[in-house]
């Protein structure tokens, strides 16, 4: 009996997802920072951590060399895996035709071999929310680990939220080739109203469908689009609503009240007088990029940098997203900029760890270093939000994940070119 238990214990530590990380400073995010600490991972989960830890016999020891361990960072809005080269349409699967596609899901269109996945990992991101674009309702976003042989293995939550884009009045549009174009307000306002109406009608249709289904209406046939709306109408699935400017934010809030749905605001670049309502209704905000230009010529030069602090001070739960493919690896720097301009450091770190974990309903599994959570960890030589730091090692669900990328390989290769 004793022998088999010992063998079992050995076997547990022989698996790739069990190890002991020694000689590290642990930044758990949800409790105090612990220097000179040890962290035990068993079966891919955090078993224990602290300064007075008994090392299990036979454990694989990893020397942390006095470095720092943080929870893996979480990007709350990204398109990696769904596009390879943004200017080449054949490589992009982000935007489908049509205005209402709630039945589409991004999870199975994510290419696990995309070069963007290891590249993004390289800067400490272990989990990303991958969203579809397009129309008013683009489809369902997936929360994925940045490691896995297949998208299935990568998935943390296959359909974590429904992506929606609030119609806006855009009098100035910008085409990268032709430059800026101005359209008359009356025209764009009419179009905006038409689209709001379309949106409203779609929700009505969905509710009617919900009722017919509940009643067991004769002749009822599954409509996959409307079927996909049911969890949203029941409040079981959230709507991730893209609303960059104040008017769109207010529209989104009104819409959520009217349709009685649970929303998360995304891509917010100004909140204005809507801040209080956002805070009061405890609606989380996935911030738009901080490394952006101000919204108009007269806006304060640092307005994109100060928004995160402004929302935090008002009591809003914030998270960060990169809204990018090629710049997804720069999540830490989007966050760091906000710290310089007033967001307290601890809050900044939370905004890319425990906050998104809670927002996406996976805080039982990830988002901090706590017993029982998955060992999604990064080992860094310094503050992971700082440009000069390096991520030295990464684990996802306790498995050591390679930080080698297309870029590191090209670097090594060409370093060796003879003089």
């Amino acid at each position, binding site marked *: 009996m004793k022998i088999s238990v010992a063998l079992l214990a050995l076997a547990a530590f022989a698996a790739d997802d069990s190890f002991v990380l020694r000689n590290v400073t642990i930044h758990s995010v949800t409790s105090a920072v612990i220097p000179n600490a040890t962290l035990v991972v068993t079966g891919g989960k955090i078993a224990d951590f602290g300064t007075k830890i008994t090392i299990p016999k036979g454990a694989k020891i990893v020397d942390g060399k006095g470095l720092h361990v943080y929870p893996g960072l979480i990007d709350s809005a990204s398109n990696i895996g769904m596009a390879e080269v943004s200017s080449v349409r054949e490589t992009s699967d982000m935007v489908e035709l049509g205005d209402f596609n709630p039945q589409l899901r991004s999870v199975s269109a994510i290419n696990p071999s995309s070069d963007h996945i290891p590249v993004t990992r390289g800067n400490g991101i272990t989990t990303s929310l991958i969203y579809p674009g397009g129309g008013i309702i683009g489809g369902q976003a997936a929360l994925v680990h940045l490691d896995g042989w297949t998208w299935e293995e990568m998935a943390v939550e296959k359909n974590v939220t429904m992506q929606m884009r609030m119609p806006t*009045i855009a*009098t100035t549009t910008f085409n990268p080739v*032709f430059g800026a174009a101005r359209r*008359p*307000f*009356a025209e764009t*306002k009419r179009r905006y109203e038409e689209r709001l109406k379309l949106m409203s009608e779609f929700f009505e249709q969905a509710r009617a469908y919900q009722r017919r289904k509940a009643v067991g209406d004769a002749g009822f046939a599954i409509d996959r689009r409307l079927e996909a709306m049911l969890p949203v109408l029941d409040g079981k699935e959230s709507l991730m609503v893209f609303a960059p400017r*104040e*008017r769109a934010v207010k529209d989104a809030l009104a819409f959520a009240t009217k349709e009685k749905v649970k929303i998360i605001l995304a891509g917010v670049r100004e909140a204005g007088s809507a801040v209080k309502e956002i805070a009061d209704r405890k609606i989380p905000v996935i911030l738009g990029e901080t490394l952006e230009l101000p919204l*108009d*010529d*007269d806006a304060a030069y640092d307005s994109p940098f100060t928004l995160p602090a402004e929302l935090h001070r008002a009591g809003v739960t914030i998270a960060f997203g990169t809204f990018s493919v090629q710049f997804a690896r720069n999540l830490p720097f989007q966050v760091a900029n906000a710290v310089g301009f007033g967001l307290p450091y601890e809050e900044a770190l939370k905004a890319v760890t425990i906050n998104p974990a809670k927002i996406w309903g996976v805080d039982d599994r990830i988002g901090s270093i706590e017993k029982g959570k998955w060992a999604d960890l990064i080992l860094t030589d310094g503050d992971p939000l700082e440009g000069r730091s390096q991520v030295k090692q990464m684990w996802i669900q306790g498995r050591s994940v390679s930080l080698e990328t297309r870029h590191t390989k090209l670097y090594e290769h060409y370093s060796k070119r003879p003089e």
Partner: protein
Amino acid sequence: MTRRHLLLAAAGALAFGQSGSPNLYAIQNATIHTASGPPIANATIVVRNGLIEAIGASAPAPAGAWTIDGKGLHVYPGLIDALSTWGVPAAAPVAAARPAAAPGGGGRRGANDDTPANVQFQDDGGPEERPSNTSWIKAADLVQSADANLIAARNAGFTTAIVFPTTGIFGGQGSVLNLAGDRAGDMVVSSPVGQYLSMSTRGFSAFPGSLMGSISYVRQVYLDAEHYKTAKSMYAQNARGLQRPAYDRALEGVLESPRTLLPAGRKVEIERMIRFGKELKTPIILYGGVEAWRSADALKTAGVPMLINLQWPEREREGDPDFLDSLRTLETRELAPSGPAVLAKAGVRFAFYSGGVARPADIRKAVKKAVDAGLANEDALKAMTIEAARIYGVDDRLGSLENGKIANLFVTDGDWLAEKTLVKMVFVDGRKFEPPPTPAPAGRTE
């Protein structure tokens, strides 16, 4: 019939000039605003054969003169639109003056077997193709005396317009035109008086497609013109042994123009065009002037005259209520009408032009706005009369009421800028016109 009428009838035979209209008038007892001095009350002005013969408080009406009782009336020099399109029909967009060699058909830079059928090739042109250029055409050759805009302008007190063809980058040559004449030729006071340039672009596919392209194009054309002039002159002196300079009508047009008009609204543009104008080695006039209020120093130092567009920037009727205009837009709107006053104070030469103001009757309102923003009344009048004439070098004959000058004037029943003032008559080259009475708007009681 009274004795007076008989006398007039007799004198009529002598007094009537061309086409049966009188050629000798005397407006008596009016307030005369000469634009070359203070107003003269209870004065008389005598017009004979199209010229002003006498002005004065005590000038008697000559025998045979058609007398007009000017009591309570005001006489002003005829208004001048310093940059106008009245009388010239809008031209179609201009193709390249020298089209490039036919594209396609197996050329090195053209189509090949793989090229889809609907594809065209853009002229890999440049300044040499002379795109958007009709520098040789003259407003004097295009004007139509019966043009409706022209007549409407005259009814509002305008007697003269400096009319330019304005299509393209090199629009063509302008003329000083009086706004009446049996034949177009009768209207011309001076031609050509300048070359109209705009920095328009030809869009995405045709040179020039950008401001930097337009500027470099104009620069090259002026260089080419200088070279052409030298070459022609050398060739004319002694043709033996020299290559014959190829005729280039676009350059002929540029060389013919005694001055060049360049567009400049914002301060950045005004300063840019002043610098650019120096390179062109020809006198320049700037037109636009929406930020004249902050450009006085630059204009004064350079000694460049400014034509100010009377279409003051207005608030968009239907703008987005959730967004404030930018501070810059707001300030420009606020301060643009004060530009003329600033320029007047700084001693910068300027005149007004109709610009985007469609109805000539609205032009007076626009001038009033500048007066309300600080421009002295006399300076406002000058900007619409003598200053325009001076800028184009015709102030020896036009622009003010002085003996010997052309009899261009208009007569009103009150201050020319007051809202309810009516224009009673207009004289162009000494010929009298009476604007039709404006019907009273429905519902208004007297």
